[in-house]
């Protein structure tokens, strides 16, 4: 496993996040704010609900003819003078990008925020090859200086105070820095402006890629996406295959709901439609354009149980509304993609073994599915994942035995009645005021984080049986 935060078990990671008072406050403020902004954006946009249905249908329709749309995209990118590369694994993706960097003699690469390049751990590979990667999204820049990982898809440094950021800048830039977001932003602008103008290589992800026109679409608020695609002499875009949309007409449907779901803006500040390298007469633009199509577990899910997770736009709306994310934040999940959708994406990229604990890090309340702009049924897939980790004997044997027994009892009324009677006897030493707060042996796995209601003095079945004489 390549992620750095996985030395400790999930429960411990979640536990320490919940004891981190600053993190708790930051999470509450940020997620509450995003929830409000998103709600307002959709309240003022009556056609939004129909557009969400449309967007969902486009995603499904695109997957149904994915080979066709990707072929079209490839043909158009090549026609425009770009080169397309195919990466089955994150390792292949890394070596494709590193090879391009080496061949073009790049020393420094500027990057705009991209989950796909986080996912393949590109920065480490570039560093090993002697190429300096520079994250240029302010949040990502902070995270990179701190040698951490993003904790939120949209605001990666959500867990840091301005004081911590100022300390970081002071240490890295070796000069006094005031702990004021305005000042800190200005310093970052100056530092990164130099890098934009010097860098040989620009690396981006892709929010969308329009098949029909060979266009890579980048959405940013800061303008770094524009810098990265305009100033360096080589541009590499790394995209998951599911990011393809058929036409500009389809693209506009997604643009109308993406920013509203993410930050509550009607549109993000910059949406850039990039079609290949610099054209004659242009002052800026790369001489070379490369598109890396990334599989890394996605293709296997086209016909797999996680297919619907391929609709995801990476807006972060499901994180903000998730009662678990709101308590533990992004790092506790331990992988590139946090939150409810992150559990599914982690299972997709790393296999079901990676989510044996995470599959249970959800209350299945359904808030994520409500907030999702393309209405991904996340709870349905989480339940399926739970079944899978059980079926494949990935879950601990005690857990599997307990659930097997439970299934056995629940399916047999006679056994159930017997169990209820036995339970009433056995619970006596543990029941206090109608609840059981602690159970012995390994059963405390259940009661450590939740109370168990006691078996009623008279069960529903017993009451039903004794009141049979009751007539309407």
């Amino acid at each position, binding site marked *: 496993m390549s992620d750095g935060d996985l030395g400790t078990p999930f429960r411990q990671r979640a536990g320490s996040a919940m004891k981190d008072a600053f993190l708790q406050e930051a999470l509450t*403020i*940020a997620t509450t*704010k995003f929830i409000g902004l998103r709600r307002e954006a959709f309240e003022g946009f009556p056609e939004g609900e129909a557009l969400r249905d449309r967007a969902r*249908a*486009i995603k*499904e*329709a*695109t997957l*149904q003819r994915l*080979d066709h749309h990707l072929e079209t995209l*490839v043909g158009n990118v090549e026609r425009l003078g770009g080169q*397309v590369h*195919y990466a*089955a694994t994150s390792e292949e993706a890394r070596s494709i990008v590193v090879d391009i960097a080496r061949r073009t003699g790049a020393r420094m690469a500027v990057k705009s925020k991209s989950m796909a390049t986080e996912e393949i751990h590109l920065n480490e590979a570039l560093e090993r090859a002697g190429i300096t990667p520079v994250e*240029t*999204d302010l*949040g990502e820049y*902070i995270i990179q200086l701190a040698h951490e990982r993003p904790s939120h898809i949209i*605001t990666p*440094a*959500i867990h*840091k105070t*301005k004081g911590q*950021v100022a300390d970081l800048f002071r240490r890295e830039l070796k000069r006094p820095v005031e702990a004021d*977001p305005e000042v800190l*932003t200005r310093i970052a602008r100056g530092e*990164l*402006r130099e890098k934009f103008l010097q860098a040989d290589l620009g690396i981006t992800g892709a929010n969308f890629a329009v098949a029909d026109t060979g266009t890579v679409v980048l959405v940013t*608020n*800061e*303008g770094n996406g*524009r*810098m990265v695609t*305009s100033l360096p002499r080589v541009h590499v875009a790394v995209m998951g295959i599911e990011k393809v949309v*058929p036409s500009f*007409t389809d*693209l*506009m449907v997604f643009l*109308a709901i993406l920013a509203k779901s993410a930050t509550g803006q*009607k549109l*993000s*500040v*910059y949406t*850039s*439609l*990039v*079609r290949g390298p*610099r*054209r004659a*007469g*242009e*002052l*800026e*633009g790369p001489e070379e354009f490369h598109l890396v199509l990334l*599989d890394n577990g996605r*293709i296997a899910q*086209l*016909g*797999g149980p996680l*297919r619907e997770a391929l609709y995801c736009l990476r807006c972060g709306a499901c994180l903000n509304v998730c009662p678990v994310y709101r308590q533990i934040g992004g790092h506790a999940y331990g992988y590139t993609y946090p939150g409810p959708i992150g559990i599914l994406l982690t299972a997709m990229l790393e296999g079901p073994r990676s989510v044996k604990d995470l599959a249970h890090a959800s209350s299945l309340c359904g808030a994520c599915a409500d907030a999702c702009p393309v209405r991904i049924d996340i709870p349905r897939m989480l339940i399926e994942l739970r079944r899978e980790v059980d079926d494949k004997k990935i879950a601990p044997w005690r857990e599997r035995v307990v659930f097997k027994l439970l299934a056995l009892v629940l399916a047999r009324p006679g056994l159930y009645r017997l169990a209820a009677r036995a339970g009433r006897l056995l619970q006596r030493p543990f029941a206090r005021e109608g609840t059981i707060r602690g159970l012995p042996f390994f059963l405390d796995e259940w009661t450590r984080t939740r109370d168990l209601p006691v078996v009623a003095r008279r069960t529903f079945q017993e009451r039903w049986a004794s009141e049979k004489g009751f007539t309407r």
Partner: protein
Amino acid sequence: MTTKAEFFAGIRDQMRKTSGLFPASVTTRPEHPAAEVETIRRELAERWPETLETFRAEFERVGGVFDRVAALDEVPAVVARIARECLARELVAWHAGALGADLVSALGARGLAVHEMPADETAAVERERLRAIAARADLGLTGADLAIAETGTLVLVSGAGRPRSTSLLPPYHIAVFDRTALVESLRQVGVFLEAWHRDAAPPGTGAVINFITGPSRTADIELTLTRGVHGPKEVHAIFVERGIRG
């Protein structure tokens, strides 16, 4: 390394396993987008004042500064006033052909150092030099190919005489537009994009179309809104009532 053939074979293998989650179709594209563009333009010729008003409100909501002049010859005075307010001395501008008007001498007469960007292909060294000028300039002056009322967005197509950097590198950006650029909705923008792609010539021949919705912003430190992180910290739009190209 995975080849294209292997990659696509893998995709087709998986696609054969399922007919999908539910019957679905992509969005129907306009059959004759150029004709639809004309229809949109014709309809807007009637109701452009309301569209402009919506644009102004939305543009201001995202932090833009809106100005309105009766005719093109009033534009230099407004640009000069904005330059004075933001202490700008050096200005980069799209080529007169791309702006639709020659404002260089009028702006020069008002004490601004104006660099007009070339309309033709230039050598790499010259491109480097011009980019350095854009990087140190205080103010960038561009046109706008579309102005979207629904979102307060300016759409700029790159190309010869219309560099991407003019609206990106200087800390202040001014876009001059008229009612031929106005559209109501993102849906209508889709029609324009389809038309530019298929049968109508796009306004610029460059590789990039930029949607700009207000000044560059971030909220990455404690969710505090800060402007001008990488792109301009102020964006101005000047609407010319009588039309730019006469």
